[in-house]
């Protein structure tokens, strides 16, 4: 029994990694006032970038860098459209998701002649042999560089947003960009930084996705970007809250997978909806009390009344 619990926890942690990374990124972006629906596309871009570079260079670490860079690139386009050109933030996010889906599929064709890639080099990991699920749980957390990195990044994001001077300015820009402007802060610069951070973090999350199955597959982000967005809302735009919400959603999907293994007589299709249903319930239940950053979703125009 305890055995199964450890296994479940391990699966939860593993499933949570891409969600948490994307959600941390989403928090940075939205705290600065930019809605980021493009998280889905950023994850996918990160996965693709990782797969291509890792495949081409044979090095997983280079692949990791490639994934982060790809995420940043996608985010940069979002920032360009929303902060500089001031297109509607939701439409920009949607457009980028479609673009990334098309570009990655096209790119996959170019590189591998088919939609799914060949297997790629993986990051070093400690994967002990044996049946002990406790060992599996421990090795899942301590033995995988990206999991450790994610935990560190959660703490770092929390410190960044709540304790640093940069975080103070980021939050100020998301609440009252006009005030920051009159104080001589660069609203555009701060918002760009928030969005690009979400690109880097999301790209890292995408790298995890690619390493997880050792290849790139068409549309492999499968809605995780949207779940991460929901986690940001549930977490009330706080990095720790968002991470906790991601763990909850990851637990739901781990539970879904485990039900199959446990041969529980619940239909697999219905169980698979658990994370999405939970998201809807959570978002509906908490929105009444959660207050988003006041300037979220509104492009900032100098001199606007």
């Amino acid at each position, binding site marked *: 029994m305890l055995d199964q619990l450890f296994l479940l926890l391990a699966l939860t942690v593993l499933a949570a990694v891409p969600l948490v990374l994307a959600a941390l990124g989403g928090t940075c972006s939205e705290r600065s006032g930019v809605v980021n629906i493009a998280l889905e596309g950023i994850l996918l871009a990160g996965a693709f970038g990782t797969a291509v570079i890792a495949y081409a260079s044979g090095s997983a670490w280079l692949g990791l860098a490639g994934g982060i860079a790809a995420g940043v690139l996608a985010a940069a386009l979002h920032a360009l459209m929303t902060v500089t050109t001031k297109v509607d933030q939701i439409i920009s996010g949607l457009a980028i998701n479609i673009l990334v889906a098309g570009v990655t599929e096209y790119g996959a064709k170019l590189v591998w002649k088919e939609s799914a890639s060949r297997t790629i080099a993986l990051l070093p990991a400690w994967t002990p042999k044996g049946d002990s699920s406790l060992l599996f749980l421990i090795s899942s957390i301590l033995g995988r560089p990206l999991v450790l990195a994610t935990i560190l990044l959660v703490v770092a994001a929390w410190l960044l947003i709540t304790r640093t*001077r*940069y975080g103070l300015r980021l939050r100020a820009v998301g*609440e009252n960009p006009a005030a920051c402007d009159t104080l001589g802060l660069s609203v555009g610069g701060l918002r760009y930084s928030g969005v690009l951070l979400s690109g880097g973090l999301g790209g890292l999350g995408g790298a995890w996705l690619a390493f997880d199955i050792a290849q790139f597959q068409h549309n492999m982000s499968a809605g995780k970007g949207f779940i991460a967005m929901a986690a940001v809302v549930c977490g009330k735009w706080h990095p720790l809250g968002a991470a906790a919400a991601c763990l909850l959603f990851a637990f739901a999907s781990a539970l879904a997978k485990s039900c199959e293994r446990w041969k529980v007589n619940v239909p697999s299709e219905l169980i698979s909806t658990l994370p999405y249903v939970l998201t809807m319930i959570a978002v509906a239940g908490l929105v009444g009390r959660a207050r988003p950053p006041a300037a979220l979703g509104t492009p900032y125009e100098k*001199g606007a009344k």
Partner: protein
Amino acid sequence: MSVAVRMSAITKRYPGVVANHNASISVNAGEVHAIVGENGAGKSTLMKILYGIVAPEEGTIEVRGAPLHRHSPADAIAAGIGMVFQHFMLVPPLTVAENIVLGTEPVKFGVLFDRDAAEAKIRDLSKQYGLEIDPAMRVEDCSVGLQQRVEILKVLLRGADVIILDEPTAVLTPQEVDELIVVIRRLASQGKTILLITHKLREVMAASDRVTIMRHGETVETLETKSTSPGEIAQKMIGRELDAPPRPGRSTPGELVLDVRGLTAQSDRGTGALHGVDLQVRAGEIVGVAGIEGNGQTELVECIAGLRPSTGTIVVDRAALAHIPEDRHKRAVVLDFTLEENAVLGLQRNFSSPLWMNFRAMREHIDSIITSCDVRPPDASLAMKGLSGGNQQKVVIGRELSRKPKLLIACHPTRGLDVGAGEFVMRSLLSERARGAGVLFVSAELPELMAVSDRVVVMFGGRIVGEVDPTKVDERQLGLMMAGHGSSEAPPPLREGGA
């Protein structure tokens, strides 16, 4: 006496309007210099140019003899100029200290925000200038007067020697105004130069050493406050003899068109906004509602119009109700609709059946409004957002009056309008009264209220605290009621000089 700021021959053109034309002003160090003028005279623009938010087409600026040219707010701050805006530029969820130091935050280890250092600095500053405040308080929990203190401390922190205050008393109670005047004089006595933009002559007389009058974008004259009078200043502001406003004849009010009893309602933030309001309006009378903004007037109007839930009783014929909302852009019109479409907003059922809209009738309707209200440009197919504020308001008024209502509610109807449009609004209110409608007129401009109302009720803290006959009460008494003092108390003396 050295010159702290000299602006010469400033000209600023916006498309279609000249905001400043050859304006010049010379401000001495350590003085309180008021800049007065009506709405649209160019006072704010001139100061925004000084602060670097707006760049002039022509003209020069010197601060303590050194020129300032094509500069940004950061340059102005570096030159010792600080500006406190009419609409506060604060970040509500952050603390007082965080708001004040934002942009020049003290740091630990290079990246961490040093909260303790920031709060200590604020305490020192507030003691130095006598501006009591708790640096750890969240700004959203602060009263309006305290929030203004935060703004003032913001500029003082950045070493401002020249402080521009843009209409600082618009949202203060008379008592808070007096406190501010004390602060202004204290700062001046400590060597600061204060530029006070205002259109309230009482403050000019009480606080300033010299006053510059602006009119139509030009600086008309600079006077020594000691040697002039409110009447002289007002005359130069308007440029013509201040006529006594036409007093409407005594009305004989008819039946009740509005009967409100025990009205209680919440504000958007969930706090209590109305606490048992009783109010009646009769046909053929104009009832003015005086009060500092934020004391429940907005909620009162919304409840009567059916836009806000409430408890208590409201007896009104909503089918014969017309409402000119205070928020023109977000409530009264759909900016992206054409004039024609806006002319039937709220009336669309009269111009349509379920599957068909009667465009011909709509066109006739807007055409008659354009003619009777002199809307410019007179093109019904233009989008509303292309019109000036005054013309937008004309369409709104034309539309609401076309209902031939029993009750007309006008909420800050002249806000943001030029003199001509404002006069049109006042005439419309009087004509409705003459037609036999009851008018509920909410305004923050006391002169307006007293000029047209038959009686004026005063709101404070979500209650009606008194009623006055506008021909028999002066603004000072009214102001006290607005601050929650009953009319039985004597007004406190106005303090002048340093305290």
